[in-house]
């Protein structure tokens, strides 16, 4: 997912993990609250993984930040997070399927500075062979 996001949003910070420092635009990748549902088929054939990808557009709710977020929210085309993640639904053959199922708006506050970041949280469902 990191590679998919990096390919579309070259100016953004993406590590594929939670970010130590926030410098928007950036993407957090974390396990979703729904977690991992093991053993969807026999013999460790398929596990179901739920991820959340949090996109942070900019500090505050400026017009520019809102426009950036609008672009992230698009369902297709350039600037769409869903389209970027679903460009290769096998993630280079690592998983069997990937589906961005929904997105909700998020405004996050930095713990140390109280700065507000306008963003959006995408839910990603992945089916992958058990390892």
């Amino acid at each position: 997912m990191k590679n998919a996001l990096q390919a579309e949003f070259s100016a953004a910070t993406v590590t594929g993990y939670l970010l130590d420092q926030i410098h928007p635009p950036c993407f957090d990748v974390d396990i979703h609250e729904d977690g991992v549902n093991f053993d969807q088929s026999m013999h460790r054939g398929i596990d179901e993984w739920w991820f959340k990808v949090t996109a942070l557009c900019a500090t505050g709710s400026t017009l520019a930040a809102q426009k950036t977020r609008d672009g992230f929210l698009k369902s297709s085309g350039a600037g769409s997070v869903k389209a970027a993640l679903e460009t290769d639904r096998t993630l280079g053959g690592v998983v069997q399927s990937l589906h961005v199922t929904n997105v909700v708006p998020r405004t996050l506050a930095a713990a140390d500075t109280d700065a507000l970041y306008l963003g959006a949280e995408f839910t990603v469902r992945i089916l992958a062979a058990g390892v």
Partner: protein
Amino acid sequence: MGYVLTDASVTISGTTVSTFIREVDVQMNVEDVDLTAMGATSRNHGAGLRDDRMTFTAFSDYTAVTGLDAICNPLLGSSTGATIVVKPTSSAASSSNPTYTMVGVLFEYHPIQGEVGAAAMTPLVFMPAAGSKITRATT
């Protein structure tokens, strides 16, 4: 003793398809023949013919040669059927891990089925080829 099914082994014509399988149901049935006669005070159930079947719910896969679709499509309505072996686990057959084997003909297969956003899955219903039934073995 309880038992959580996560590693059932399913092979079709020698090809292991376990990782596609979400649900497995091996049914060994005997028809219930009513032999009740006049004067009886309760039903007399006679054991009739065997009427076995194996049914599965499987994740669809269209990979050439090794995918479920490539394996199952030729078996639909096949006159000779295919040998299907099911075990509780993938371990070697034993007295505690018996095999259930049937030469089966595929009678139900849904190559494409599902609602938007859901994992594509298919039922597979195998009935015994003529003269066949499910046999249990421990080796």
